[in-house]
């Protein structure tokens, strides 16, 4: 399950952010999961919980707020904007490849209007740590 490695990265980023903000305790991690990567929300919450034990003590009581972010593509050739439902990504091995590396959508997806593989992924690509909630050393 490669989600565990990404969950571990989220934890490490949270610890760094807590250090930067001088937080003594992290109560909540707000995480966005891009629709393109096809990581299930439940599975990612499970992964976060799973890697929690080995982390910084300030994180041990943390809860997670994981939400899915829809994909937005924009074609660099005809400038058409489109979404996940407008392309087929699951032909052959495309779905699994994109699950590991979302940029492989450039190998397997095409602009529905002009057929170009040259597009931007404006939103909904992968995992982002949106926000931390916690308390400072004096609270």
């Amino acid at each position, binding site marked *: 399950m490669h989600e565990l490695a990404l969950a*571990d990265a989220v934890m490490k980023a949270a610890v760094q952010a807590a250090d930067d903000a001088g937080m003594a305790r992290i109560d909540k991690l707000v995480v966005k999961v891009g629709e393109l990567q096809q990581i299930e929300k439940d599975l990612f919450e499970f992964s976060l919980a799973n890697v929690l034990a080995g982390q910084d003590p300030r994180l041990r009581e943390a809860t997670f707020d994981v939400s899915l972010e829809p994909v937005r593509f924009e074609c660099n050739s005809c400038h058409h904007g489109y979404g996940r439902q407008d392309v087929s990504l699951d032909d052959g091995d495309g779905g699994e490849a994109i699950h590991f590396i979302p*940029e492989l959508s450039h190998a397997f997806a095409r602009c529905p209007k002009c057929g170009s593989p040259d597009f931007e992924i404006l939103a909904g690509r992968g995992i982002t740590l949106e926000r931390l909630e916690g308390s400072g050393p004096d609270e």
Partner: protein
Amino acid sequence: MSNSVDPRPFAIADRLAGVGRIVGVSGSKGGIGKSVVASTMALALADAGSRVGLFDLDFTSPSDHVVLGVERSFPDEQFGIDPHEAHGVQMMSIAFFAGEAAVPLRGAATTNALLELLAITRWGDLDVLILDMPPGLGDTSLDVINLLPRLEFLLVGNGSRVVIESVRRALSLLAELDVPLVGLLENIQRVADGAVASLAAEFDVAYLGPIPFDPGFEAALGDIRLLRETAVYRELARMLAPGLPATK
């Protein structure tokens, strides 16, 4: 924390914690033998008993799997993904995911693919991880210089004035950025005119010696038994027999 954070860079140090040295095989031009040198070097080091990784970073034109004759297969997933072991070399390539499909990537997408693979690949314990770089000093080279503080470069060049001119630019940039250099390797030497060796001396970088044009190399591509008989393999094995040279 006011802005959202990309978590991937925070995992990279951990994923590479068991790796001794990280060497980017680079060169300013395409087609001068970076992939051949990176792959054959990985094989020669593994044959000599080193634990070696080979990471193909030329995402739009991966080649190492062709040189070493490795078939596409999705990596095993555990806590991240495992490199694919072939002939004693731990390999990672975008070709394992893309198959034969073309992967057209702009700069930002290249950076994203690199970050993703660095964050999820478990390299384990290696003496050296070799990065096969795309040509030039563009996005991927600048990204690895920024993301991997322990990175060293090994430059491949030849005696053509077109290449010398371009390797000189690369050497001066790497000196300016304080990137340590294993050395400068001359591949496909046509004439022994000393041009590459004097360029190395000019920048106080080790000259790693010449590799001749090897007429049998094409036929040996992808066939590990034949590959070990090529002049390229022989020269690299000899060059690396005392171990991968230390940087200057």
